[in-house]
């Protein structure tokens, strides 16, 4: 009660609410700018440039960094993502099944592959699979193994995303489809999943970017020169030139993909929103 009275009464002294807000924001900006200046001034730019930004070394990376390394990174990621979407969808449907054993298997799968570091999964594929199945080769060589590793990891995350998306579609949609004579599977495929996809587009992008970065672990599979992706390519060159410029260039190549991708997805989201609105 007393509180309200104070607020309603005209102030005799001190700052108004909006003045206070402006002041506190001003302080925040000042602290931020001061921090940036402090880092910029104290850093040894000369040495940093020497180690990370040698134009000659950067130049000698082209065109291989794009035509070989980036191409392989994209190839590993896309194949892993496609496998992950397919497997993730199956796991999500199992997770939502009314059949107990399906649910249990799906839960165990998700917990294991979401809980293990990606690095260990790649080591496992590189070492354990050949031991367990001597003589059998994973089709596609390194590309197949990479897709498998990234797909297994991606599926665990995407299964949870799909499940959430499917559950977010109103119950009436399934009822309407079923009463029109759709079988449960057909209703899922034609009616529910297309709507779920729209809902989960943003988290699905995140998972793509996660796989994009995890593709650097492909080096654990033991790759040939032609199979190198960005991180391995950059590190190899960094060691032969005894300079870190290749690592910076490789890093920029990752951003070259992820930043436009984020932009495209925001556009797609806005369009999907418009259609539904």
């Amino acid at each position, binding site marked *: 009660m007393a509180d309200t009275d104070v607020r309603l009464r005209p102030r005799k002294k001190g700052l108004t609410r909006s003045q206070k807000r402006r002041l506190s924001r001003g302080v925040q900006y000042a602290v931020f700018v001061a921090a940036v200046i402090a880092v910029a001034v104290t850093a040894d730019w000369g040495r940093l440039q020497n180690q990370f930004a040698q134009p000659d070394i950067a130049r000698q990376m082209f065109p291989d960094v794009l035509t070989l390394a980036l191409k392989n990174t994209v190839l590993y990621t896309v194949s892993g993502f496609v496998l992950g979407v397919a497997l993730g969808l199956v796991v999500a449907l199992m997770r939502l099944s009314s059949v107990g054993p399906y649910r249990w298997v799906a839960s165990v799968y998700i917990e294991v592959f979401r809980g293990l570091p990606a690095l260990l999964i790649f080591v496992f594929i590189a070492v354990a699979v050949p031991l367990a199945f001597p003589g059998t080769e994973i089709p596609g060589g390194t590309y197949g193994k990479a897709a498998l590793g990234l797909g297994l990891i991606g599926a665990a995350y995407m299964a949870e995303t799909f499940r959430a998306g499917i559950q977010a579609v109103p119950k009436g949609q399934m009822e*309407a489809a079923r009463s*029109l004579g759709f079988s449960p599977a057909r209703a899922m495929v034609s009616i529910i999943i297309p709507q779920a996809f729209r809902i989960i587009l943003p988290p699905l992008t995140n998972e793509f970017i996660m796989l994009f970065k995890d593709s650097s672990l492909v080096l654990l599979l033991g790759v040939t020169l032609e199979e190198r992706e960005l991180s391995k390519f950059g590190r190899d060159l960094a060691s032969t030139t005894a300079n870190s410029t290749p690592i910076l260039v490789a890093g920029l190549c990752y951003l070259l993909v992820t930043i436009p991708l984020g932009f495209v997805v925001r556009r797609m989201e806005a369009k999907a929103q418009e*259609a539904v609105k």
Partner: protein
Amino acid sequence: MSTPGTPGTPAATGTAEIQVRDLHKSFGDNQVLKGIDLEIRQGEVVCVIGPSGSGKSTLLRCVNLLEEPTRGQVFVGGTEVTDPDVDIDAVRRRIGMVFQQFNLFPHLSVTENLTLPQRRVLRRDKATAARIAAENLARVGLSEKADAYPSSLSGGQQQRVAIARSLAMGPEVMLFDEPTSALDPELVGDVLAVMRMLADEGMTMMVVTHEMTFAREVADRVVFMDGGVIVEEGAPARVIGDPQHERTRHFLSRLLDPAMAEVEEETSDQVGGTER
């Protein structure tokens, strides 16, 4: 649009289209239906009325097995829906269902809402599905909305599209689950007009509704439910105009004239008071 005063027309001839026998349904400990027996003949329009929680929607949803009955049998067009070995998808193709919340598919245009089920379920070719879709959109008076998306339509328009979507499947029976309850009052009329047209064309209809005027003018028979049982049924003029049971009278008086119901309650309170 319709010929006035059609109740009780002998449109209802021939065999039973829907048969419900000793139907029970419980959700956990909650007994919603406690033994329903009902028969709807071909071409008959039956309105199911009753207070909320009386089980009328559950009864309707048991007819196409959206709810699985706990006990009892349901037949539609001679097929036992409740037979565990029945091909329920095949039976549902013959039963149209209209929901309170329309449930149009929001990711598809109006035309696609009508064509996709025909293509996927009935395996009609593209041209046939498109033609039938256009015919049925015209029937509900929404040809100009063919390319629109559901979200750009009013509730009344959405519900008419939903009716057209069901009709495009060529159903023998139409089930309506409170089709106008989610609509703004000024939009109710258009939907009821479409339903009236269907009734006049001889469609077998089971309608759960609170629209007493519609029930009185269009229904061949009115069924009043309360507490999971059918309290009384008969011609609308009798059930709505001259109810025999106290529960029906009470329900109708509250529905038709809330002010009067209040007076009634007040008087009974006073009577109670004097007795004490």
